[in-house]
């Protein structure tokens, strides 16, 4: 097996007395799509932020393409981020910038591309996510939630990353728009040949975009297997979650 593009080794993260991650081990191969499922408060977002370097683990290590990036700052961190894309749950579009300026943000501010060239590439990338050039000059507040997710997807793929993180990509969308977003994620990740790590509790989305699924429960990965095996995992926690049952070993977050 080739070296993982991302590897988390016994990652622990606590907030005060709340131990959110209790030793997460995870690896993702280049080109692989891994979906991490788990209930609300299971630590999915914290895990993602530790992997991205937005948080630093209390202990454990994070490797990107074989390099230990757990504590890295400055240039090494920038080099990692240049190869990583991220789609945030809320879209996280900059509301003071137009759609094309959002999409081309990295090109303008990091790669120092001329604004006219950056705009051209932004419009070409918007086309890949089925958005026409007429939305390029609008502000995020002027477009729908589904369109904002597409713009955010365009922003995450414009610099052709090797690894893309998706944080709840379909949350808050109607089922048809959610399915369209899933299709776009699949299409773009395959076109780029990038690895993808998605976190979600939307099972139709997980089934559609995952090569493999892992389940995070109480700060640990308790099961991992092929997406096709998730229905008969033999794990009572996974089984309860996948079938959305209130009764079982997992107590509903109330």
């Amino acid at each position: 097996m080739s070296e993982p593009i991302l590897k988390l080794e016994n990652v622990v993260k606590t907030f005060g007395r709340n131990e959110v991650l209790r030793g997460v081990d995870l690896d993702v191969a280049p080109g692989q799509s891994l979906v991490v499922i788990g209930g609300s408060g299971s630590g999915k977002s914290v895990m993602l932020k530790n992997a991205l370097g937005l948080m630093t683990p209390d202990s454990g290590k994070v490797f990107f393409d074989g390099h230990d990036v757990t504590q890295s700052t400055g240039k090494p961190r920038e080099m990692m981020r240049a190869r990583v894309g991220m789609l945030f749950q809320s879209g996280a579009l900059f509301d003071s910038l137009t759609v094309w300026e959002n999409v081309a943000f990295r090109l303008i501010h990091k790669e120092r591309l001329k604004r006219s060239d950056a705009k051209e590439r932004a419009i070409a990338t918007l086309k890949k996510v089925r958005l026409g050039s007429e939305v390029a000059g609008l502000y995020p507040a002027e477009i729908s939630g589904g369109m904002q997710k597409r713009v955010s997807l365009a922003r995450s793929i414009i610099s052709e990353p090797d690894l893309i993180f998706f944080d709840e990509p379909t949350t808050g969308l109607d089922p048809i728009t959610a399915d369209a977003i899933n299709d776009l994620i699949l299409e773009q990740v395959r076109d780029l040949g990038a690895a993808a790590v998605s976190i979600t509790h939307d099972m139709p989305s997980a089934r559609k975009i995952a090569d493999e699924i892992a389940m995070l429960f109480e700060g640990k990965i308790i099961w991992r297997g092929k997406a096709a095996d998730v229905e008969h995992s033999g794990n009572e926690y996974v089984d309860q979650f996948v079938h959305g049952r209130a009764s079982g070993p997992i107590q509903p977050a109330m």
Partner: protein
Amino acid sequence: MSNVSTHKSGFPNPLRWIGAGILGTFAEIGRLSTFAGRMTFAAFTPRWFFGQIWRQMIQIGFYSFPVVGMSAVFIGAALALNIYSGGSRFGAEQFVPNIVVLGITRELGAVITGLMLAGRVSAGISAEIGAMRVTEQIDALETLSASPFRYLYAPRLLAAIISLPILVAASDIIGVMGGWLVSVFSLDFDSATYLRNTLDFVTTDDIIVGLTKAVVFGAVIAIMGCYQGDRSQAGATGVGRAATLSMVGAAVLVLATNYIMSNLFAELGF
């Protein structure tokens, strides 16, 4: 649940309570100092986002002009009335223009501008940054390899320390004119004499003192706004609380640094 332990009787342990308060205060001072240091470093080393600095100068400087101007004219007018009223008790009414210009340029022009901007600008910055924090826009900036310190905070700091002295200079002129208006039209002063006394009395040092204070107040206002916004907790309550804390913190620090600087300038003979 309270973190403060209790005696067996159920009353809070006062020593533990005081200790926790002191530790918390030092921790907050440490966090604020580190944040201010990073912000200052980002502001005075490349790379600068000139478009952002210009946009913030419009927000902080240009849009604050009406409120600063209105405040200055009324402060100058009230000051003239009070000095006239007090001075008339021992026949010193003629010193109204001298004391008005001294009070405005050395003290009130800068302090009133600082306090008005602590409300208008510091709270605005922290609400904007706070909203960006809770909607993950600041995380998004970092994932796009843009430092929030360089892209968001440094432009606000630079814009504030450039805009405040300009606003204070305007406030000084408008404040003096407020005093002149009342003195000439209400207290029967001769217009030319009033203006000549004002110009003869004010020194370059008086103006430098006020403008130096303005630079420091600009830094205080921008740092408090960005710091509280960056630490904002999720939700409307969190953002609202950040705006309140930044406004109160900036106002108190404006008054505290004003006292320290007044003392320092007096020691230095300014």
